[in-house]
C-alpha cells in the first residue's frame, strides 16, 4: 500500500517538470523542420515555390517508399539490409522483362512485385525457421541479389539494342505505360506538377500508417517488437507476422525499383547505390519525430522529407554536391542522439 501511495505523489510531483521535456521531445524535430523551411525560404531564392516543393518530394519518393518497408522490419525488431539490392533487382528485372522478353508493362510490374514478395518470404523464412540472425540473413540476401541481377546480362546494363549473351540483339523497348510511372506529372492547380512517384509515396505512406497504427495486425507487430515472448504467450503467431513484415519490406523495395526503372528508362546496373543507406537513415530519423523513440510510418515519411528539404535547400544555396552524404550523416547522428538521450532520460525517471 505504501508503495502505491508514494507512486502517486511521485508522478504528481514530476508532472510539471515532465511537460517541458515532453514538449521538447515531442515537437523538437518538427520545430527544427519548420525552422529549416523558414530559413531556406528567406535565404535561398526560389526555395518557396511549388516546383521546388515537388522537386523535394520527387527526390525522396523512392527512398521514402523503401524506408517505409524498413520501418516494418524495424517494428518487429528486425532489420532488412537487402532492400537496396531488392530495388535494383526489380530495376533490372523490369528492364529484362520488357526489353529482352519483350513483354508488357503489366507483366514487368507484376514480375517485380512477385519477386519482392518472394525475396521477403525467403528472408523471413531464413530468420524465423533457420534462426539466422536478421542482419546476417538479409546481408547474405543483399550479396546474393547484387550478384544475381548481373548474371542474365553478363554484368551489362539493359537497353534496347543491346547484345545478348546468345549473340542476338534485344529488340524490346520500355513500354510507354511503364515510363508513364516515372515521367508523367499530374495537374494540380499548376499544369504538369505532381509526378506519379510522389502520388505513390503519399498513398504508400498513408497505407503504412493506417496499417501500423489503426489495425490489430500493426498493433501485434509492435507487440512482437516490444516483447516477442509475451506476444507469443498472448496468442500471436509471431513467425507469421515476422515473415509478413519482411514480405512487405521486399514488395515496397521492388515498388521503389520499378519507379527508378521508369524514371531512368533503362536497366542501369550502377544506379541505386545509395538506396539502402538513405532509406535506413530516413527510418531511423523517424524515431526522433514526435519523440516516440520507435519505428513509425509518419516519422519515416517526415525523416525522408527532412533529408530532402535539407539537401535541396543547401543545393540552392550553392553547397557543393559532395557535401550531401556528410549532411545526411550529421542529421542522422543528431536525430539518434535526440531520440536516445532525451527519451532515455524520460524513460530513466520512470523506472
Amino acid at each position, binding site marked *: 500500500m505504501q508503495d502505491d501511495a508514494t507512486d502517486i505523489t511521485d508522478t504528481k510531483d514530476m508532472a510539471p517538470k515532465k511537460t517541458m521535456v515532453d514538449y521538447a521531445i515531442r515537437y523538437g524535430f518538427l520545430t527544427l523542420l519548420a525552422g529549416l523551411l523558414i530559413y531556406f525560404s528567406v535565404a535561398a531564392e526560389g526555395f518557396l515555390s511549388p516546383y521546388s516543393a515537388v522537386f523535394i518530394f520527387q527526390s525522396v519518393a523512392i527512398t521514402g517508399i523503401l524506408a517505409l518497408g524498413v520501418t516494418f522490419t524495424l517494428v518487429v525488431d528486425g532489420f532488412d539490409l537487402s532492400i537496396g539490392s531488392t530495388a535494383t533487382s526489380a530495376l533490372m528485372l523490369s528492364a529484362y522483362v520488357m526489353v529482352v522478353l519483350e513483354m508488357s508493362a503489366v507483366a514487368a510490374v507484376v514480375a517485380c512485385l512477385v519477386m519482392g514478395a518472394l525475396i521477403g518470404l525467403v528472408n523471413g523464412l531464413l530468420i524465423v525457421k533457420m534462426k539466422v540472425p536478421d542482419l546476417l540473413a538479409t546481408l547474405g540476401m543483399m550479396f546474393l541479389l547484387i550478384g544475381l541481377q548481373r548474371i542474365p546480362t553478363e554484368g551489362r546494363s539493359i537497353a534496347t539494342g543491346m547484345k545478348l549473351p546468345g549473340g542476338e540483339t534485344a529488340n524490346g523497348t520500355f513500354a510507354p505505360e511503364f515510363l508513364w510511372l516515372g515521367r508523367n506529372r499530374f495537374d494540380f492547380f499548376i499544369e504538369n506538377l505532381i509526378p506519379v512517384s510522389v502520388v505513390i509515396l503519399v498513398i504508400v505512406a498513408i497505407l503504412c500508417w493506417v496499417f501500423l497504427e489503426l*489495425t490489430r495486425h500493426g498493433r501485434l507487430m*509492435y507487440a512482437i517488437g516490444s*516483447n516477442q*515472448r509475451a506476444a507469443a504467450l498472448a496468442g500471436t503467431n509471431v513467425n507469421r507476422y515476422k515473415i509478413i513484415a519482411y514480405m512487405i519490406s521486399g514488395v515496397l523495395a521492388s515498388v521503389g525499383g520499378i519507379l527508378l526503372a521508369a524514371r531512368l528508362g533503362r536497366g542501369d546496373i550502377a544506379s541505386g547505390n545509395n538506396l539502402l543507406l538513405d532509406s535506413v537513415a530516413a527510418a531511423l530519423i523517424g524515431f526522433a519525430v514526435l519523440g516516440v523513440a520507435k519505428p513509425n510510418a509518419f516519422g519515416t515519411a517526415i525523416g525522408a522529407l527532412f533529408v530532402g528539404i535539407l539537401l535541396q535547400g543547401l543545393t540552392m544555396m550553392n553547397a557543393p554536391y559532395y557535401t550531401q552524404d556528410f549532411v545526411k550523416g550529421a542529421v542522422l547522428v543528431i536525430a539518434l542522439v535526440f531520440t536516445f538521450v532525451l527519451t532515455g532520460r524520460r524513460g530513466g525517471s520512470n523506472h
Partner: protein
Amino acid sequence: MAKAAVEIQGLTKAFGTNNVLRGIDLELYSGEVTVLMGANGAGKSTLVKVICGVHPADNGTLKMHGEVIRPATPSEAIRAGIVTVHQNINDGVIPDLDVASNLMLDTLAEPGSGFFLKRREIRAQARKLAASMGLNVDVTQPVSELALADRQLVAIARAMAHEPKLMILDEPTSSLSATEAARLFTLLDRLRDAGVAILYISHRTSDIHRIADRIVSMRDGEIVGRFDEKPLDYEAAVNAMLGQKMVDATLDFKTAGAPVLELKDVQIRAGSPKISLTINTDEVVAITGLVGSGKSELAAILYGLKKPAGGTLTLMGAPYAPKSPGHAIESGVFMCAKDRGTNGVLQDHNLTKNISAPFLARFSTLSFVNRKAEARGARDTINDLNIICQSETDDIGTLSGGNQQKVVIGRWLSQPSDLLILDEPFQGVDIKARRDIGNKIRETAKGRATIVMASEMDEVMEIADRIIVLADHKIVGEHRNLDLDIKQVVAQVAGLNGNNKQAKVDG
C-alpha cells in the same frame, strides 16, 4: 570449525521500494558445505550477487576471516577469495576455446601476463590443475565438445585456480544427470577436504542428502531457519522455507461443478509417471511443488507450448490438443505466464494495449481496432483490480511492480474463459497486491475452472479450494484446502514419503 571463514551481519538490499534482503546474518565455515534453500523470490540470488560483488549491499558487513571486505565488482570478490559458479553452465566457460585456455583464462586476462600466448606452459599448468581436481579430460579439446557435466567441472576447476576461501554454487546440478551429479559431488568433497567454505544452493533432496553439512532456509529476504544437527532435518528446512503462517484470509469454499479439463495418463516428460487429473468448473485448484517438479511444464502443455510425452487431454468433453497459445486461447484456455518481465509486460506500450493484446481480434472490425471499446475494457480492468495509475493511457513502465502484475493478470480476467491457468501470479508483489489479486481470482472463479501454479505454501492456502502436489513430474498428493495437514503437504512437496501416502490421498 569454531571460527567462521565468512561472516555476514545485518546485510540489507533494496531495489527501489522492494526490500529484497531484510538483514541477513550468516556464517559459513571452512571445510563445510552449507546448503541454502529458499522459494522463488526469497532473495537467494540477490544474496549471492551481493556476496560475489555484482550488487553493492545497502547495509551490513561481510567479513572474510575477520577482515571486512566490500567487493564492488566480481573481480574484486574473486581476488578476496570468493568464487561463484553460476547456474547457467555456459556462463562459466568459453565454448570455443580449448580446456586449457578455459582453465587458465583468468591468468590470461590478468594485466601484465605477457603479450604472446605461451601455449605449452598454459597446457602444462592446466594439466596440473586438472589432475589436482581429479578432472579427467584432454586439455587440448574445445570445451564445446565436452558433455554438460564436464563443462561444469571445468568451470569449477577454473574457479579453483584462484585458491578460493569461499565457493558459491547456484543450482549446479539443475541440468545434470544423476551420474554426472555424482562426479560433481566427488569434486566438492575434495574442495571441502581442502578447507574451502562452500555455499550450495539447491532444492534437490538427493543433492542435499549427499552433500549438506548444514542447511539454511531463507524466506522473504530473511534467514528463517538454521539446521546443523545431524541427522539434518530436511523436512523442517523445507517447512521453514515455504512458511506456513496461518491464513487470515477467509475462503468461501466453492462446490466444484462439471468437469472442464481432464488429463488421462499424461506424461510430462518421456518416461515420467502418468498423471490423471480432473479440474472442474467453479473451483480454484492450486498446483504446488518445488522448482523442477514439473509445474511449469504442465502449464506449458495445457497452453499449447509443449506436447505431452503421452496421454490425452479433454476440454469440455472434447479432445484437446492445443498446437499453440493462439489455439489454446481460441479453445477458451488462457494462461498468465510466470515472470511478467520476460513473459507478460509489453514495454513501451500503454495499459490499454497491454490489457487488450490477446483479444485484439475481439475489439476489431475488419482488422481495424475499435479504440473506444478497447479503452473502455481497459478502464474496467483498472477499476476491477484497483490498479493505481493516472489513466488507461499510462505507459506500463510508470507503474510499480505490483500494479504491473495486476495489469498482466487483469489482461486474462478481462475476457471470459473456460480454463484459466495462472503460473506464479503472486511473484514479486507485496502482501496487499497479493490479496487483491487473490480475491479477484476467487471472485471471478464462477463459470470457469482455475488452476494456480504456486510454490509458496502461504499463497497456495490463500487461493485454493483444492491442492495438488507435484514432485518429480508426478502427483504425490491431493488435498481439500480444509483442515489441511500442512506437515503432510510439506513432506510431499519435499518429495519425502510421497509414495506411501499416494494411495490414501487418491482415495
